[in-house]
C-alpha cells in the first residue's frame, strides 16, 4: 500500500508541472502583454515614445527574458510558495489566493452538496423503478438541467428575481463567518443553478450503479432471505453503489472550481473565477498562473485521494 501511494504521489508532480507549463505557454501565445495593453489602451502618449514605454515596462517586469527563463524563475518561487507580485493588484499573489480561494471553495462545496442531496435519491428512485414513468420523469428532469447553458439559467434567475420580487441577492460579498445569513443569501441562487446543471451526471451514475448492484448475488441473497425490498435497496445496494459515485463527485469537485466562473460573474461574487477572468484580460500573468496552478492542484489532489481510497478498499487495483 505504501509503495502504491508513493508511486501515485510521484506521478502527481509531473502532471502538475505539465499543467503549469501548459498555461504558461498558452498565456504567452495570447496576443498582447500587459505593457502593450497599458500603453496602447490609453493611446495618449505620442506614438514615438509608446514603443519605448512598452520596452521599459517589459524590462521592469522581466518580460523581456526568454520564456524558459521566465518559467524557471516562476517555478523557483512557486515551490517556495511565492507566486510573485500581481501586476494589477500590486500585492503578492498568495494574498489574492488566500482571499479568493475560500469563497470559490464555499460555492463549489455548496453546489456539490446540493447536487448530491438532490441527485442521489433521484438516481435511486430511477433505478428501483427502472423503465417506469417515474424513471422517465426523473431522467427528463435531470437531463433538462444539462440542456440550458449555465449563464442563461443565471441571467434568467437574476431577471426573474427582480421582475417578480424586486429583489436581488446582495451585491457586496460578506464572508460566511461574518454574517452567515447574508452570505447564504448571496450564494443560494448560483448554488442552485450550478447544482441543477451538474446533477444530471450524478443522477445518471447513481442509477446505473444501482442497476448493476441490484443484480449482484449478495443482493439477490439478501432478498431471498426475505429482507424487505426497501431495506435491501437502502442497506445493501445503495451502500455498495455509492463508492463510484463518491469517486466521481470527487473528480467533479476539482473541475467545479473552474466551472463556477460564470456564476461568480453574474452574481457578483469576488472569487477565484472573477479574479482569473480579470487577470486574463489584463494579462496579469503571475495571477493567472497561480490561480490555474491552485485549481490544477486541487483537481489532482482530489484525484489522488480518490485513487488512494480505492487502492485501500480494493487491493487488486494496486497490482493492476
Amino acid at each position, binding site marked *: 500500500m505504501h509503495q502504491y501511494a508513493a508511486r501515485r504521489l510521484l506521478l502527481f508532480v509531473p502532471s502538475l508541472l505539465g499543467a503549469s507549463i501548459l498555461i504558461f505557454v498558452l498565456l504567452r501565445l495570447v496576443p498582447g502583454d500587459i505593457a502593450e495593453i*497599458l500603453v496602447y489602451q490609453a493611446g*495618449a502618449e505620442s506614438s514615438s515614445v509608446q514603443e519605448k514605454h512598452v520596452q521599459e515596462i517589459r524590462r521592469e517586469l522581466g518580460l523581456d527574458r526568454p520564456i524558459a527563463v521566465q518559467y524557471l524563475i516562476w517555478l523557483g518561487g512557486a515551490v517556495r510558495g511565492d507566486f510573485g507580485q500581481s501586476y494589477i493588484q500590486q500585492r503578492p499573489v498568495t494574498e489574492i489566493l488566500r482571499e479568493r480561494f475560500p469563497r470559490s471553495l464555499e460555492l463549489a462545496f455548496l453546489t456539490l452538496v446540493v447536487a448530491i442531496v438532490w441527485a442521489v435519491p433521484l438516481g435511486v428512485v430511477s433505478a428501483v423503478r427502472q423503465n417506469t414513468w417515474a424513471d422517465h420523469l426523473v431522467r427528463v428532469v435531470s437531463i433538462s438541467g444539462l440542456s440550458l447553458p449555465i449563464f442563461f439559467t443565471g441571467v434568467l434567475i437574476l431577471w426573474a428575481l427582480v421582475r417578480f420580487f424586486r429583489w436581488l441577492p446582495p451585491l457586496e460579498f460578506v464572508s460566511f463567518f461574518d454574517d452567515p445569513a447574508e452570505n447564504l443569501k448571496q450564494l443560494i441562487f448560483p448554488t442552485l443553478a450550478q447544482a441543477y446543471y451538474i446533477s444530471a451526471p450524478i443522477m445518471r451514475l447513481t442509477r446505473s450503479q444501482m442497476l448493476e448492484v441490484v443484480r449482484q448475488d449478495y443482493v439477490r441473497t439478501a432478498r431471498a432471505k426475505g429482507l424487505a425490498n426497501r431495506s435491501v435497496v437502502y442497506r445493501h445496494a445503495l451502500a455498495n453503489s455509492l463508492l463510484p459515485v463518491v469517486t466521481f463527485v470527487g473528480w467533479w469537485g476539482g473541475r467545479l472550481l473552474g466551472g463556477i466562473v460564470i456564476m461568480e460573474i453574474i452574481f457578483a461574487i469576488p472569487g477565484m473565477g472573477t479574479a482569473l477572468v480579470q487577470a486574463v484580460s489584463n494579462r496579469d500573468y503571475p495571477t493567472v498562473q497561480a490561480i490555474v496552478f491552485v485549481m490544477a492542484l486541487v483537481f489532482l489532489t482530489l484525484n489522488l485521494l480518490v485513487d488512494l481510497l480505492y487502492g485501500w478498499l480494493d487491493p487488486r487495483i494496486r497490482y493492476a
Partner: protein
Amino acid sequence: MTAREEIPLMRSVLSLMIAILTSLGLASGASAQEKPRPGGVLNWYVYGDPGRLDIHLESPLSVQQVLAGVYSGLLHRDPDDPTKITGDLAERWTVSPDGKVYTFHLRRGVKWHDGQPFTSADVKATLDRVLNPATKSPRCGSMLKPIVASAEAVDPLTVQVALKFPAAPFLEYTASAWCAIAAKHVLEKFGDLSKPEAQIGTGPFKFKRYERGSVIEWEKNKDYFRPGLPYLDGVKQFVLVGFPTQLAAAKAGRVMLWDTWPPMKKTDADELQRARGNEVEIGQNSINTIFLAYMHTQKPPFDNPDLRRAVHLALDRQEIVAKALEGAGIPCAVLDPKLAGEFALPLEEVNKLPGCRQPKDQDIAEAKRLVEKHYPNGVDVEAAVRSVGNYVDRAQLVLSQLRKIGIRGTIKTYESAAGFAVFGKGDFVFLPTQDRAMVTVDPGDLFSLVYTTDAGSNWGKWTDKKVDELTDRGLRETNREKRKQIYWELQRYLLSGAPSAVPVAWVEGYHFVDKRVRGYKFAPTVYDNNTFMKVWLAQ
C-alpha cells in the same frame, strides 16, 4: 377627442416638457430650491475592478471613478454647472500678460485626510511627478507635458506654472479630474499611489474600504475645506462586471445612478423605466466619445488616398446611427457641437458635405468609381474588430455599406485587450469601428490624439503636414475667434480629404438618476464631476 385619448397625449406633452426642462438643466434647478438634507449613503457601481489606484499612472475610467471624491484638483468642473471650470484648491488665479505664466493662489487651511496641512509644495510635487517623462502618466501627463515647462512654489499658498508657450487648453487640462493633486508626503512615503493605503486626498470623501472585486467605499470627510459639504455620509460603488448584473441592480433599485461605462442602450432604458416607473429620471447624454473607422495608410489598398476617400463617401452615417446606435449619436461630425460648442463646424454645413449628405446615391456612385479606377473587380479587406459591446454589430453594418462600392470586408475579431495591442502596433488593414473617448472637451484633443503624425492613437500611421500645422496652431492660438477659424478649417479639411480615421459619429448613451438623488449633474466628459460633493439624498 374623448377624455380617454387625452391622457396619453397629456402624458407625452408632459414628458416632452420634462425632457426640454432637463436638457436645459431646469428640472434639477427646481429641486435646488429645496434645502439639501445631509446624511445617507449613495450606491452605484463600477464596471470593473480598478486594481491599481494611481490616478496619475492609470487610464481606465474605473480608476478615476473610484477615486473621484477622494481628491481635489487645482481647478475642477463646477459641480453646479459642469460645462464651466472653476477653482477647487486654487481660490483664484492670474495670467501673465504674455500668457505664459499662470499664478494660482491656494485655499487657506486645507488639510489632507491624514491631518497634514496642504501647501504649494504638494502642487509642485504633483506637477513635477506628472511632467516627469519617467512617470509615464498617460492622462494628466500626456496632456500637460507638451505645454508646461515647469512649476514653482512661490510661497506656501502660491504656485506658478510656466508654460512653453501660451497654450489655449491649459486651464481645461488642469481642471481634468485626472490632474488630481496628491500629497507630497504620501508620494514620498509610498513611492506611488497604487495601493489603497496611499489614497490620501483633500476631497470631500475619504477612501474608506476597498474590498477587491466587490466594493469600494468612501466616507464623509468631516474636515472638508468647503464648509457644510459633502451632504452624503458616504458613497458605495459595487464592482459589477456583467451587463445583466448591472441592469438587474439598477432595476432592483440597488444602484441609484448610471453615469459610467457602458451607457445603457435604448432598450435597457425602456426596461428600466418599466421596472422603476417614475422613481428614476432617464436621459440621453453625450459621453464625449467619437466612433471612428481606421484605415492603415501604409498598407494596400488604403495606402491609396482614393480608396480612403471612397470609404468616407460611401459610409451612410445616418443609417449607422439609426441602427447600430439606436439613434443616439451625431452622425459625421468631426467635433460635436454639444461638447465643443462653437468650435464645432455647424451641423448644417457638415450635413451638406459629400459623404455626410443624404441621399447617398451620388456619393456612392462617386465612391464606386474611385474603387473601380484602381480595383475593377473590387477588393477584399480584412476588417479587425475588438469583440466588445456592439462593435461587431456596428462593423457588420459598415461592411454591408462598403460592399456596395466593391470593398468586400471579412470580420476578424479580437479579444478586447488583444485588439489594443494589435492595433497599437499597426497590425491591421481596416478597423470598421473603434471608439475614442476624449479626456476633456477642448476642441484640439481629437486632432492631437488621432490625426497628427505623432498622435498616440494615429494607428493608421497617417501623415499630413497641414493637419500637423493646423493642430499646432490651434494649441497655441489664444484668441477664441481665430482659434475657431483654425478648427473649422481643420474639420473641413478632414471631411473633404482622405484621412486614416474616418469620423462616423459622436456617440451618446442613456443614463439614469434615481429621483432621490439630488444635485447630480452630468459632466461633458465621463471622467469629471463624480465627486458627489454637492449631491444629497431626498427622503
